[in-house]
């Protein structure tokens, strides 16, 4: 009897061990992506990646997905559009990843859309703007709060019109993202009956913005809508501070990428005062959801060591939310079938740390989640101030509003 019990026990332990080993030995679920880790977009790319890595560690701590660990396969796309098609071909053909996440930003994402559509792969977008408008891929889900194409420009120009603005100046970087923004701004301005008195695209290699701003100032606009990338945003604000922008300007900003990043904000300090700019998450009480606080606690601990944006408000929680959405989809569908996952993502509403997300038919958020906020009372060289509410007063959307616009721009700068 004893021998039988011993034998039975041994067999049970062996079977259990083998089963556990089998689960442990199952190939991980590979999520492939490129991410800007060098080049002009690296500041955002690294923070976004850290957000995704925090999710990966959380999901693996919960036992993974479908009994398998989650593994990230990541390559540096150097912020370049020319790198991404080859990287994503490698991810599909050599690394044989199961799920694709898009790189951060419009420029590196745009050229890989035809490839992903041709291969019938689901693609979780990462802050692109209107890259699917001409491609029409039905398995594209852009996790960016832009919403309908014109909502970004409308929210800003509405504020300007309410402040008495009738004329507008457009200054945009000569590249995909900024030009898309400028295009929608032109359309919205026409709809609102505003006159465009200055409309210029500057090359990304521009070193000095004094000349452009002089020409802009001479046009005497009421509203200045700027669509710039991180290296240029700082240069533009410095030049505004030095040569002025004119007393008639009521509203300045709109689409300046970079003014959401901790180190850029710290460097610019008081130069930010008065600027009204878009943002995706701010430490205002109304922007917290389930898990947001815990996420930022985990992120902040790892950000210093990883030498990435210490605040991480702009992209990192959306990287985490991308993971949350794919986690919910895989759990609900019970497989990695691309079409079934896409169907789930398209039809359901997803609860994430950045709020509830529903996708429209074009793969963009159904409703805009972009906020327009005005910098107030910013001091020089102090990054910690941005962790407090009230430093960026939310003007749009109405349900998130935390204050009123101070205008004209020169008065708001003081």
């Amino acid at each position, binding site marked *: 009897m004893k021998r039988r019990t011993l034998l039975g026990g041994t067999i049970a332990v062996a079977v259990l061990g083998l089963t556990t080993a089998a689960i442990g030995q199952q190939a991980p679920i590979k999520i492939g992506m490129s991410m800007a880790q060098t080049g002009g977009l690296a500041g955002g790319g690294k923070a976004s990646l850290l957000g995704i890595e925090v999710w990966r560690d959380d999901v693996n701590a919960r036992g993974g997905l479908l009994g398998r660990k989650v593994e990230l396969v990541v390559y540096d796309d150097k912020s370049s559009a020319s790198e991404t098609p080859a990287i994503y071909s490698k991810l599909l053909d050599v690394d044989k990843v199961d799920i694709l996440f898009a790189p951060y930003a419009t420029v590196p994402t745009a050229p890989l859309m035809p490839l992903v559509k041709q291969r019938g792969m689901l693609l979780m977008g990462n802050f692109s703007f209107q890259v699917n408008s001409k491609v029409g891929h039905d398995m594209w889900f852009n996790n960016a709060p832009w919403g309908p194409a014109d909502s970004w420009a409308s929210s800003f120009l509405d504020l300007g019109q309410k402040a008495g603005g009738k004329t507008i100046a457009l200054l945009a970087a000569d590249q995909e993202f900024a030009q898309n923004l400028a295009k929608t701004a032109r359309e919205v301005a026409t709809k609102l009956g505003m006159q465009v008195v200055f409309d210029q695209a500057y090359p990304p290699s521009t070193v000095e913005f004094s000349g452009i701003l002089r020409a802009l100032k001479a046009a005497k606009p009421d509203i200045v809508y700027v669509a710039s990338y991180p290296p240029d945003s700082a240069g533009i604000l410095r030049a505004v501070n030095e040569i002025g922008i004119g007393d008639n300007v009521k509203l300045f900003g709109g689409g300046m990428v970079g003014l959401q990043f901790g180190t*850029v904000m710290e460097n610019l300090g008081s130069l930010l005062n008065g600027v009204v700019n878009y943002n995706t998450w701010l430490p205002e009480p109304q922007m917290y959801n389930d898990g947001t606080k815990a996420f930022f606690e985990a992120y902040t601990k790892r950000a210093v060591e990883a030498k990435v944006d210490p605040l991480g408000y702009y992209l990192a929680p959306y990287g985490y939310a991308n993971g949350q959405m794919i986690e919910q989809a895989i759990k609900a569908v019970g497989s990695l079938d691309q079409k079934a996952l896409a169907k789930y993502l398209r039809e359901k509403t997803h609860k994430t740390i950045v709020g509830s997300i529903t996708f429209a038919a074009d793969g963009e958020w159904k409703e805009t989640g972009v906020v327009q906020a005005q910098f107030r009372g910013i001091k020089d060289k102090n990054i910690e101030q941005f962790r407090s509410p009230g430093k960026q007063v939310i003007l749009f959307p109405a349900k998130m509003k935390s204050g009123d616009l101070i205008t004209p721009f020169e008065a708001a700068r003081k």
Partner: protein
Amino acid sequence: MFSFELLLDAVVIGVLLGCFYAAVSLGLSISFGLLDVPHVAHPAFLVLASYAVYFLNEHYGVDPLLAGLLITPLFFLFGLFAYRLYYETFERRGSDAGVRGIAFFFGIAFIIEVLIIMQFGVDQRSVTADYVGKAWRIGEMRIPFRLVVAFVVAAALTILLTLYLSRTFMGRAIRAVAQDQEALRLMGANPIRIKQWAFGIATAVLGIAGALLIIVAPVEPTLDRTYIGRTFCVVVMAGLGSMSGTLVAAIILGVAETVVLTLFGASWAPAISFAMLLGVLAVRPQGLFGRRS
């Protein structure tokens, strides 16, 4: 929209911006212009100097220009080492010709970029000083102080380098090695040591130029890619090896860029430098201030 006031503004800012371009190109005028070394890592050295200035400014509160002066001796030594490495691995073996010499410096530039990212991260960095962020008001015109600083420093550097190359023994030796290395060897001088010294001087100049770079605008690790075209354009347009020519060519470029940017549209500005370079080379293949060989 054209106005004479706007044109005058553009010309003034263009002159100042041109002086800044000159300051960041003078080192290359020695290394590439006089020594014929395909120094494509020049802008990466420049960005490295900017980060050294940032470090001294951020952690010890040293004024950026003073920090630029302080790192100059270190950059001189770095230049001596870099040239010796290039000489031993490429030039001495005769394998510096064509793309191989360029590949060496591309490799150095890439290593510098990665080292900066590892040490400082990928975010933009800037410095604080009394002359950063303020402007000098003349009537309706406002001139950023940071560009005035660039103007003064570029003028001083040009004068100092011109005097050094024309009035000192070592300076004349550098010019001689540029003209005929073999003749210099026959006279008992060691051209390699002279070239190494000259490369050290070219790199030392970047200490100050790096300070100007971060004074004029924030820097990030890959900023060197923005300057590679402009600096080579200035040096070739000037006529290889001419210091005063470098200043004049850079001012011409700065004014042309700013006038186009202000009055005709920003999209055309990047084409200006290369269009002007092609135009100059078509009329004067030796550059504006170069001598016919």
